[in-house]
């Protein structure tokens, strides 16, 4: 059917054109620039020196590797903690109780909240003169703001992790709620009638059932937190610095040579995310085959 084929091509062209020219075009041109191709300053030869500089030169190596370490730590910690907290929240909130609808709404409230606002909220609550510090001083836990632990703009990335937990726990929560709702309680009741205790029901009934959705949500959250700019830019410190912030600052550097390094960094971030995603698919596929 030639007519149908034409229809398919015509329908798919506009969105594909946008993705190809803007998205892949942007990546491709960024890649070219990371190889040192910068017609604006008369550089046409291609080499990997920007990658080498970023990763191994004396000037940037320390910044890069600590940044990468911070990136991995923040993404793993926030994804894991958000998933665990959301799982407990979703399991707890299933039963009916007073003000359930309101609680449900509050638990989903951060879902549409922009990351930027969540980061500002974390500053308001967790900084040394924030709401929690005030509450702590009110009940006599701390004497001065300095006694409150540094949780925002700290070198371990706690503030960044907190912001991502705040935001992504709501995302996990919504996904888990819908999975649990569609499952109903039949499986659990069956397990219970067969003599399974609470832990066994959780470990061998609920967890395997929600795991596929939890896992695919984790990969989205991980990939996002690995490459996002706003939250670490607001809640991070100058050293160690997360890679997206570092890439952006290289890029904005008035020295045009630093631009190649910024591009190289952004390509490195993309490659790491891609490797992790592929690894994830490979792992899940292997698991499906095994089962």
């Amino acid at each position: 059917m030639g007519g149908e084929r034409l229809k398919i091509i015509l329908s798919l062209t506009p969105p594909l054109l946008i993705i190809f020219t803007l998205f892949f075009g942007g990546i491709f041109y960024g890649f070219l620039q990371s190889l040192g191709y910068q017609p604006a300053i008369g550089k046409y030869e291609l080499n990997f020196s920007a990658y080498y500089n970023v990763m191994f030169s004396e000037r940037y190596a320390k910044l890069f590797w600590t940044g990468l370490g911070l990136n991995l730590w923040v993404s793993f910690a926030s994804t894991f903690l958000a998933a665990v907290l959301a799982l407990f929240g979703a399991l707890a909130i299933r039963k009916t109780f007073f003000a359930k609808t309101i609680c449900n709404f509050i638990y989903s409230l951060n879902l549409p909240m922009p990351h930027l606002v969540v980061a500002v909220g974390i500053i308001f609550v967790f900084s040394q003169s924030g709401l929690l510090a005030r509450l702590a001083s009110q009940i006599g836990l701390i004497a001065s703001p300095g006694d409150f632990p540094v949780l925002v703009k700290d070198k371990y990335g706690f503030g960044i992790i907190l912001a991502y937990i705040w935001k992504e726990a709501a995302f996990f929560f919504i996904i888990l709620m819908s999975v649990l709702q569609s499952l109903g309680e039949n499986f659990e009741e069956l397990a219970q009638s067969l003599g399974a205790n609470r832990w066994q029901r959780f470990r061998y009934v609920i967890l395997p059932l929600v795991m596929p959705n939890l896992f695919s949500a984790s990969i989205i959250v991980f990939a996002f937190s690995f490459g996002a700019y706003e939250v670490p830019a607001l809640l991070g410190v100058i050293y160690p610095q997360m890679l997206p912030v570092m890439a952006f600052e290289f890029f904005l550097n008035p020295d045009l040579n630093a631009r190649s390094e910024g591009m190289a960094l952004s390509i490195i971030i993309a490659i790491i995310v891609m490797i992790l995603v592929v690894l994830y698919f490979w792992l899940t596929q292997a698991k499906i085959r095994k089962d």
Partner: protein
Amino acid sequence: MNNNLKKINIYAIYLGAFILILPLIAFFINAFSFRWFYPQVIPKELSLQAWVRLKLIPKPGQRTFDGFIELWASNPAVIKALLNSLSIGFLVTIVSIIIALPAARVLGLLNFRFKKLIIFIMVSPTILPPIAFVLGLNINFISWGFSGNYFGVCLVHLVPIMPYVVLTMTGIFANYNPDFEHQARTLGANKTKTFLLITLPAIAPGMVVAALFAFLVSWSQYLLTFLIGAGKVMTLPLLVFSTASSGNPALTAAISIIFIFPAILILFFTSKFVSGESGATSGFGKI
């Protein structure tokens, strides 16, 4: 479940809800009290000074209808950013729906070669971070003349939005039965009429969710607007970011409240539709 455990469970939920809502409480206290000094938990006095400084509420004594109109007509920065954010959001949403509609129909209803590959290409911007494409694109946009203007910002917003709109609407069309259209056609309805009376009502609920979602993604875009807009296109997230970095909590809180208002409104209206199976939900994680 034994009774004590049940109680602990419920109190834990209340505690969780309280902790989750703390930032929101802090936003409101900060925005409506100009001098909220440590260690006060509750501010000594309420004040609208932040809103006056942002030129959203007139000074005391001028708070009449005319006073408001006059102040807002003077085009304060927040109103300007708000209008930019709104208009970019609307425009991008409409354009993305129009572009996605035929593609989603084809992807949802037909089977053809390379379909999986095309879907994979379509969703790739949802996995790779924006910083991976926007730095390179920025240079391209400068040479094409799209940098630093409204059009360029709209165009770049399409990149994160397109995948979700296509995905959500593909999901709608996957559960859609085109036979009704054939019936309408055999009964003599023309193409336009069939679309307006048969297709549109069937896909409308899902389309509204996709549209609200697309709007929200555009609404909360910081990095793309900042880079492509080159500081010339001011939107609300840019204003929030710069105010937050300069460190005035009252002003930051006031702008943030304006910024999050539509988000909460949209959650309120779509909470029924938002579930783990919807393609749009996956996008919420990335706003």
